[in-house]
């Protein structure tokens, strides 16, 4: 047993972020701590490495064992020097921007080797993470996201640690790269604790899962018995909420969101969102007890075999006249020294009531295409028409009039809502800009709010008081308020917890059907596109490599690249 901790509790002031958690990592085992944002998983990992801010109080016992070093009592550590990097290797969250910008990779590796008395050579460390001597002499900004993540892992390996802690090691990477990086971590043979929100993505790589909810352990389960036996409804929900690339598997969402730490429900904390909760769940805290090969903290685990979360609806199958027509779109970005062809002859039509999935990895041109559809970028060549009006030929007032008929949902619900405006004012803004008479505002705002699935009680709140899912729904309401014909959603769910993504997709489907909207849904997640769209257009290097109905693409992709994307998102 490499790591064994009992009763870890982390408090920030009066708020309990981690509540009496026990955790073990066996020699060479990969344990994944999973859950939605705010469930305490990062606090737990940081507590184990002594990385919490001074305002946090940590209590509990923990021992780190190895055959090369004496046992380390983690609860008694005063000075973390010589422990972090040497006994515990850390791969911090956000390696994309976490490497030193001013030192070459080699210098960074050498520094870690010097500081932690490592015996390896920088080149060997890079080889271990699948990089070459070319990367050795590079600076961080010259590396791709996947390469940076590998360097971060190599840095953590420099001190030859007994335990590796990786916090969200795949954030910001595309599906193909996510699999490669997780595969690398799992292949190192070191006892590893991975913290992640993406449970399904870890299935092929983790040995055991610790599912956390609202600071407590909901379930600890080996991956081998995850698809059989009885589990916590939350575990089942997390798995069902991950969109499968197989269209015969339904996609579900867990309603609501995790409770704030200062307003935790009594009894089982998951009860308010649980479809099978009983009276007992709302009064008594369930203990973690052995169920099969694992342990589950649930009163209802006997009845929780088929939980029944709300499924994301499929298309009705009818779509009307084309709303958006893009033909022969070509676009080239020019800068001082280079020209980049972002799009090279793309055709796209979206009809009334239809959701088109625009799929591709970063750099495929999908965001450029979305911006052209919005009239924000004038393409180098090609024509865009919205209804009967040409977007590409319009300028000034005429262009703005056309643009008002398009709603836009931004990727980042945290940055796209002004923090100083209340929800009502945020949603009203398109009406103010379009000079819609004041008297009509109220009705339109309420109708948009209902369509986006938000209660009217939120109108007086500030974005800071809302959860990520609620914020994104405010964005949807804002996009809908002026009755657009076309909705462009740019990676609208990529920054949300997996549990809420299905809810957003459900909302988009219902507005497409009920309001006859044409929707362009930009995403890098093949599963999400297959589950929620009518047709899929796969972009690569600015060209359409495949386009067709979701079912067809899911079951029999024609292009090799589509098959590759499907394989990468296959769970």
């Amino acid at each position, binding site marked *: 047993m490499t790591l064994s901790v009992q009763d870890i509790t982390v408090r920030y002031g009066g708020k309990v972020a981690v509540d009496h958690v026990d955790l073990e990592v066996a020699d060479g085992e990969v344990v994944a701590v999973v859950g939605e944002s705010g469930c305490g998983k990062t606090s737990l990992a940081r507590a184990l*490495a002594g*990385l919490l801010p001074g305002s946090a109080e940590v209590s509990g016992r923990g021992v780190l064992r190895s055959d090369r070093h004496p046992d380390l009592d983690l609860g008694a550590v005063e000075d*973390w*020097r*010589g*422990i*972090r*990097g*040497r006994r515990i*290797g*850390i791969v*911090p969250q*956000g*390696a994309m*921007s*976490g*490497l*030193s*910008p*001013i*030192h*070459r990779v080699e210098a960074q590796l050498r*520094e*870690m080797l010097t*500081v*932690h008395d490592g015996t390896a050579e920088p080149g060997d460390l890079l080889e271990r993470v699948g990089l070459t001597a070319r990367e050795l002499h*590079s*600076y961080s*900004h*010259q*590396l*791709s996201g996947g390469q940076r993540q590998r360097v*971060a892992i190599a*840095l*953590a390996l420099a*001190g030859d640690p007994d335990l590796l802690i990786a916090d969200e090691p795949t954030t910001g990477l595309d599906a193909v790269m996510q699999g490669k990086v997780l595969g690398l971590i799992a292949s190192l043979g070191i006892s590893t604790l991975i913290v992640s929100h993406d449970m399904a993505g870890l299935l092929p790589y983790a040995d055991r899962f610790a599912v956390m909810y609202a600071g407590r352990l909901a379930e600890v389960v080996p991956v081998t018995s995850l698809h059989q036996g009885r589990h916590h409804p939350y575990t089942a929900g997390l798995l069902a909420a991950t969109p499968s690339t197989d269209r015969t598997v339904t996609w579900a969402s867990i309603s609501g969101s995790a409770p704030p730490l200062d307003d935790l429900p009594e009894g089982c904390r998951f009860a308010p969102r649980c479809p099978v909760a009983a009276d007992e769940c709302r009064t008594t805290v369930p203990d973690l007890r052995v169920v099969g090969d694992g342990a589950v903290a649930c009163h209802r685990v006997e009845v929780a075999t088929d939980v029944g979360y709300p499924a994301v609806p499929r298309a009705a199958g009818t779509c009307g006249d084309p709303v958006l027509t893009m033909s022969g779109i070509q676009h080239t970005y020019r800068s*001082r*020294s*280079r020209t980049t062809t972002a799009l090279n002859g793309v055709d796209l039509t979206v009809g009334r009531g239809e959701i088109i999935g625009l799929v591709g990895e970063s750099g495929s041109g999908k965001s450029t295409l979305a911006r052209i559809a919005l009239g924000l970028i004038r393409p180098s060549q090609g024509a865009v028409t919205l209804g009967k009006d040409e977007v590409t030929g319009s300028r000034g007032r005429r262009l703005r009039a056309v643009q008002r008929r398009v709603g836009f949902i931004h990727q980042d619900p945290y940055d796209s809502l002004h923090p100083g405006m209340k929800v009502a004012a945020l949603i009203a803004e398109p009406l103010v800009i379009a000079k819609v008479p004041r008297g009509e505002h109220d009705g339109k705002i309420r109708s948009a709010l209902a369509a986006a699935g938000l209660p009217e009680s939120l109108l007086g709140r500030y974005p800071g008081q809302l959860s990520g899912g609620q914020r994104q729904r405010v964005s949807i309401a804002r996009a809908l308020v002026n009755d657009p014909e076309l909705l462009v959603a740019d990676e609208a769910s990529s920054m949300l917890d997996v549990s809420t993504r299905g809810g957003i997709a459900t909302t988009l489907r219902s507005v497409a059907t009920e309001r006859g909207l044409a929707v362009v849904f930009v995403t890098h997640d093949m599963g999400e596109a297959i589950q929620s769209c009518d047709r899929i257009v796969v972009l690569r290097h600015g060209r359409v490599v495949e386009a067709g109905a979701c079912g067809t693409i899911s079951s029999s992709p024609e292009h090799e690249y589509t098959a590759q994307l499907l394989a990468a998102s296959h769970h």
Partner: protein
Amino acid sequence: MSAIQTSAPDTSLGRPGRVTYLGGRVAEYVVVLFVAVTLNFLLPRALPGGPLKLFGSPEALARLTAEERAQIATEYGFGDPVHVQFFAYLRSVVTLDLGTSLSDGRTVTEAIGEALPWTLLLVGTSIVCTTLIGIALGVIGGLRRSEGKGAGTLIGAIVVDSIPQFWLAMVLIVWFGVKWQVAPTFGATGPDGVTVTGLAQHLVLPVATLTITGIGYIFLYTRSSMLNVLTSEPVQHAHARGIPRGRLVRRHVLRPALLPVHTLIMLDIGFLAAGAIVVETVFAYPGLGRLTFGAIAARDYPLMQGTFLVLTLMVVLMNLLADLTYPLLDPRTRTGGES
């Protein structure tokens, strides 16, 4: 200004790319310089009053007949149309023959040549002092702030930063020069000509004034830059990887934190190298600043154009230098390094 940039091929690795880059930057600055030089020509002429109004004493001026005025104007070229004056001026800039000062009869080049070494001595010394003290305090302030201390130093720095130069200069003169008589208050040399001690003594008060009034914002800038870098992801990550604090500060914090300070100081040098007008005037220091002040007071067009030209040249030159040295400090701005 990309129009004057010759386009480099996509694979601009190594020498050709670097040469194109340097060439492009220099070409940009030539354009900037031309615009600035043009402004230098126009600005003095936008001042109310002309050189004739201050030609000699007012009484002498009043006695001049219209004919005599016209003759003087022709002699100095003031009567010519503006564009003719402008081309004459451009020619003089290129040939460095900047004409003759209206107020003391020396050539402008001569006047500037005499004043420049004094300014470089004064300003050079104070820049070194300001930079060293300001950065050292800023680094300490930033580190202390990150530990939750040092609010007092911040208030102190804001107070020091708001002290007006002329006021501090006069306070120093009154106390150190007049009351305690420990330092000379006037000129650059003593009665026995140029001696090392004499030069140093005469530098004390002006350098003290420039340093004290200059430290504040370098301190504030360094401190906030330190705080930014201390909380940045690369530094947080290095901490998580177990890099000890001392090493963390030396290797991971200092260089990125001093990048913006480097630019600031370069621009500062550019401005100050053309003379510290207030300090040189108060201490009667014979540098470019006092020369400029005198030229403006006398509406001495040629001399004004000359000193402004030096200011422009210095600012543009230091900008260029800051631009060209920045990539040495920050690898992200190096060209030809794309993967």
